[in-house]
C-alpha cells in the first residue's frame, strides 16, 4: 500500500516506471544485506540471533523485490494486464476500503499502544520509552500529514 501511494502518478506508465526504480532500490538493499551476511558478519562477534536477522531480512527483501520487479515488468509489457491492474488500483471503492482499513488499524494500534504503556512502565523503562517514542512519532506524523493535506486540498 505504501509503495502504491509513494509511486502513484496520474499517468500509470510513469507509475510503473517509478515503481521499477523503487523495487530496484529495494533489491539493492537486499543484496547489500547478503553481502554483509557473507563478508562482514562472519568476522564479527554478533550472536546467532543477529546473524539470523541478516540472512532472514536480506532473503525476505530480495525475494519481495524480485517478485514485484518481475510483476511490474510484466505489466509494462502486457497492455491488457496493465489496464486491469490500473483499474483495480484506481477503483474508488477499493481506495475507500483501504483508506478506512488503514484508519481503523492506525486508531486501534494507537489505543493498544497507549494501553501497553501502563503495563510496560513497571516491567521495563527502556521498552516504555521506546513505545512512548513510537506514539510521539505517530502523533507528529498525523499532525504533519493533517496540516499538509489541509493546505493541499
Amino acid at each position, binding site marked *: 500500500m505504501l509503495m502504491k501511494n509513494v509511486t502513484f502518478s496520474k499517468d500509470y506508465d510513469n507509475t510503473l516506471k517509478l515503481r521499477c526504480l523503487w523495487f530496484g532500490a529495494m533489491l539493492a538493499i537486499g543484496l547489500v544485506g547478503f553481502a554483509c551476511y557473507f563478508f562482514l558478519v562472519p568476522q564479527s562477534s554478533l550472536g546467532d540471533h543477529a546473524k539470523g536477522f541478516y540472512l532472514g531480512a536480506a532473503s525476505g527483501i530480495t525475494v519481495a523485490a524480485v517478485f514485484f520487479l518481475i510483476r511490474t515488468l510484466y505489466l509494462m509489457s502486457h497492455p491488457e494486464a496493465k489496464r486491469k491492474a490500473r483499474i483495480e488500483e484506481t477503483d*474508488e471503492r477499493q481506495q475507500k476500503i483501504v483508506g478506512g482499513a488503514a484508519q481503523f488499524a492506525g486508531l486501534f494500534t494507537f489505543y493498544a499502544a497507549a494501553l501497553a504503556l501502563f503495563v510496560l512502565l513497571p516491567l521495563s523503562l527502556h521498552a516504555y520509552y521506546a513505545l512512548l517514542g513510537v506514539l510521539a512519532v505517530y502523533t507528529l506524523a498525523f499532525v504533519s500529514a493533517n496540516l499538509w493535506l489541509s493546505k493541499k486540498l
Partner: protein
Amino acid sequence: MTNRIAELRKARRISQAELADAVEVTRQTIISLENGRYNASLLLAHKIAQYFGLTIEDVFIFEEDTPC
C-alpha cells in the same frame, strides 16, 4: 442516494462486467452501487451517466433524508 443503474443496465442488456469495464472500475463497485451500499463519486457518477447518454440527475436520485 438511490440510483437507476441496474434498471438502465438491464434495459440495455449490458452486464455488470461490461459497465465496469466501460467506466473503469471493478465489477464489485458496480454491484455495490446497484445494491445501494456505496455512493459514487462525482467523477464516477458523471462517467456512468455519460455511458448511458443521460444526465447525472437521471441516473442518481438524491433523497434529502438519506445520509451521504
